């Protein structure tokens, strides 16, 4: 068989496959193969497998750092500015920056990366107040807000404001000072940006600490009464802090962006086929198929909209 004939056969086979996948005809029971139930189940399997693969990329440090990093433009200055803006909008006074609280926030962030946790309380039971006390800050009221994976400050502050317990900290009239740490590092295998926001009011008479709780999502007051606070001698080391720009400059896309892009590609493929099928079958007046397509199109349209506008980031 000549080479030209072989190419012709391959081309013909390829076109038949494409037609079978996308064009409704008697060969695919008048429904594009992509819209067959088995094909939709295959899509589900592919999506699940891809997502699992993405989660395992953390075991390949090279890929993890150069492709799937986290790019955020959050700065401590912006966080303080926007925190004071939301407070001012409710008639509350602005918070002033405390170096000790910032040092405590940094120590907390470093501890989360070192021990790989994302919580107000460390796995060994260390509470946020330990970091504040270790920084030398003597408080009568203190609080902590945490955030991760946000692209910008306004989204992060909006998320805190949308959560009643975090909002309670932001809008607490008892707080006078603030400390912020924005730290890039690796948490559970992925580069991320952690933001630790610590609030406080200097004083020694009564130690009251406030923080949103991880599980119950309610503000909890931990009253220490008149007990004397024991100050730890060790001051958190800050020279190991990872420069925020180290990862931000080398990032190609975030895991969330990659996930969204892939999922949207799946939806676009299904939606385009549904639209094509609707027009082809519609012109043949086969109403029963069109009927189902309209519902599917509405649902996948909504899913695409939600994927596009889905905001990453988590608060704690």
């Amino acid at each position: 068989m000549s080479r030209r004939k072989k190419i012709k056969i391959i081309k013909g086979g390829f076109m038949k496959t494409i037609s079978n996948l996308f064009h409704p005809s008697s060969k695919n029971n008048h429904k594009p193969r992509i819209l067959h139930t088995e094909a939709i189940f295959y899509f589900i399997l592919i999506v699940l497998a891809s997502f699992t693969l993405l989660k395992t990329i953390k075991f390949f440090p090279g890929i993890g750092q150069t492709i799937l990093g986290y790019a955020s433009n959050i700065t401590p200055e912006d966080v303080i500015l926007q925190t004071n803006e939301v407070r001012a909008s409710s008639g509350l006074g602005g918070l002033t920056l405390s170096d000790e609280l910032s040092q405590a926030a940094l120590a907390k962030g470093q501890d989360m990366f070192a021990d790989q946790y994302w919580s107000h309380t460390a796995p060994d039971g260390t509470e946020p107040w330990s970091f504040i006390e270790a920084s030398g800050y003597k408080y009568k009221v203190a609080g902590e807000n945490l955030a991760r994976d946000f692209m910008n400050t306004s989204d992060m502050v909006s998320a805190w404001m949308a959560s009643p317990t975090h909002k309670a900290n932001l809008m607490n009239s008892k707080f006078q000072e603030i400390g912020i740490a924005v730290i890039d590092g690796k948490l559970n295998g992925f580069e991320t940006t952690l933001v630790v926001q610590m609030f406080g009011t200097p004083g020694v008479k009564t130690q009251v600490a406030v923080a949103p709780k991880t599980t119950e999502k309610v503000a909890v007051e931990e009253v220490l009464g008149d007990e004397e606070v024991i100050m730890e001698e060790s001051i958190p080391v800050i020279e190991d802090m990872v420069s925020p720009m180290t990862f931000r400059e080398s990032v190609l896309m975030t895991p969330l962006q990659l996930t969204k892009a892939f999922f949207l590609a799946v939806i676009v493929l299904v939606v385009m086929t549904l639209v094509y099928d609707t027009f082809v079958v519609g012109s043949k007046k086969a109403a029963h198929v069109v009927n189902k397509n309209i519902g599917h199109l509405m649902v996948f349209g909504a899913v695409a909209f939600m994927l596009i506008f889905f905001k990453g980031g988590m608060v704690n």
Partner: protein
Amino acid sequence: MKSEILKHKLAYGFLLVALISFVFGFFAVWPNRAYQQILIVSFSIFYFVWGLMTHVKSRRLTQQVFMEYLATSLLAGVLLFLVTL
């Protein structure tokens, strides 16, 4: 297509209202991921039941229709659920 929508305007109207409520609710509960996931599962189940009900009403419910709505609801739910993890 237009005639199909007009013919089943009540069913599509109901689906549209549910979709708008779902989308609005999904963004309204942000950043609470647990609530978003509950909404996603609820909507997947709703769409599956909606599909079956509309076909029961028109007496065209077959195993193929059942499987098609199951697969479509699952795909939509899985895509949204995974992105919230």
